[in-house]
């Protein structure tokens, strides 16, 4: 399956406090997280995430284990997050909540340009150049294909 979206480029070492600030965590209402996603990084980002592909730098999602971070990104409508490297808890959390996260080196793309990818075929394409991605482990692939760990567990 090939998916695509407009690139929303963010920097490196984006911590989960910047993805969703601690002050918005005391609720179970996921729409609150979607509304305030990336607020402390750039308040103009949230409305741009519908159908977007987030292209981040190294160490995306470092810091706190808060699962609200990938949920906020997913609920805001982003299709996937691509980065050369992810903080491991964020990476695991994203797969567990059904948000595709893609490890890809050297991706060059302008903010707002179109990014395409196929996780099954193992590539990301931007600006006419195709980049290989690091495959997920078979278990992580299964969890993501199920739509997250809760569905994976229920279906097994």
């Amino acid at each position, binding site marked *: 399956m090939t998916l695509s979206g407009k690139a929303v480029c963010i920097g490196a070492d984006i911590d989960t406090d910047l993805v969703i600030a601690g002050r918005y965590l005391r609720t179970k209402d996921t729409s609150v997280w979607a509304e305030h996603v990336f607020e402390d990084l750039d308040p103009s980002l949230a409305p741009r995430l519908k159908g977007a592909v987030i292209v981040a730098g190294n160490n995306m999602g470092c810091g706190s*284990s808060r*699962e609200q971070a990938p949920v906020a990104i997913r609920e805001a409508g982003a299709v996937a997050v691509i980065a050369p490297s992810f903080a491991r808890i964020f990476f695991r959390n994203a797969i567990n909540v059904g948000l595709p996260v893609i490890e890809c080196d050297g991706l060059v793309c302008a903010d707002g340009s179109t990014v395409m990818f196929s996780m099954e075929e193992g590539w990301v394409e931007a600006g006419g150049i195709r980049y290989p991605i690091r495959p997920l482990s078979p278990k992580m692939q299964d969890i993501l294909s199920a739509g997250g760990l809760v569905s994976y567990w*229920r279906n097994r």
Partner: protein
Amino acid sequence: MSTLSERILGGPAGSYVDRVVDRAFAHDGTGVLAMEAYRQMGNPKPARPETVSIIYDHIAPANTSQTATLQNELRLFAAEMGFALTDIGGGICHQLMSEGRVLPGEVVVGADSHSCTTGALGAFSTGMGATDMAAIWAEGSTWFRVPETISINLTGRLPTWCEAKDIVLTVTGRIGMDGGTYRALEYTGDGATALSMAGRLTLCNMAVECGAKTGLFYADKTTQHYLAHYGHNIQPQKVEEGTYCRELCIDLADAEPVLSVPHRVDTVAPVTEYAGTHLDQVFVGTCTNGRYEDLERFAHIVRGKEVACRTIVVPASRAIMQQAAETGVLTDIIAAGCVVGPPGCGPCLGMHLGVLGEGETALSTANRNFKNRMGVGAKYFLGSVATAAASALKGEITSPEGAI
């Protein structure tokens, strides 16, 4: 020959293994989310409820009705599942796990990024998210990718004015915020052996700040003695040479008081470079530096004097607070004009008990100085307990050299 992580997880670095989780814990923040995931999973019967702890530390006591309501829900859920609940005032989850709930060789998972702390006891201890925690409650096990290991060889002894905190900030500065991603940090050497358990916990606590999955010390005589206090009789772990992806050597004698400069933990500079910077607040506590040894060191420096800026001291657990009360350490801290908060995370995550105002500058003994974390528009430095004490007395960043 294998690393301690490989030995405990039972596979070579890079392999994927399924492992029974010996201890699992969540706090009032992640516990609520894990409870939600667990319900969505259909509320299965927990596999090993006796191994699960729920510990209230993040916003304890509750700050709003909304928080209180969520906490009540989690209390009922924990009782229904048969999970051990430590309610408000018990202390920070990582500290409580280190107080006799984690043993060498165990696999420990906490729904909090600083769950790497109890690697100091020779366990493989790491943080995961709420849904992973829910699955662990249901199955009693989870999958791991066995990490590659960065070996950190500590030699020599620390100067009296330096602490494990200065070492861990130096290590974080050298490795960088993502230099340890997916890896484990293994501390060895005569300098590691000489460190107290409190110091080891400080070092392992911050492993996640360079992206590492955990930090580990081999269980030795210090571990044996420490756990005997909690009624456990353990054997030291044999130190083996493994295959490391990177090796660092640090002579503790070369240590100097350092700070993490806002807003990156890996921007590390000598305290002297920022000496004289005005401080609005000093905070001593957290899972990094809220132990008895820390409070005693702080009290030693402020005893008989008065702090010159708002200073908040939060013991990491009830046992620590009680010990500090019994020995007079707490009295010294209060007499110096500090505010003492209930055992827990305190203002570390900017939710209550000392949130910073816009434009304010603080010095904290915590582990993160991310933008806006402790207060929107504020900036804060991370440093050792001695640096915090010397700085609190002057109301400005001050080197502890000569103060202790």
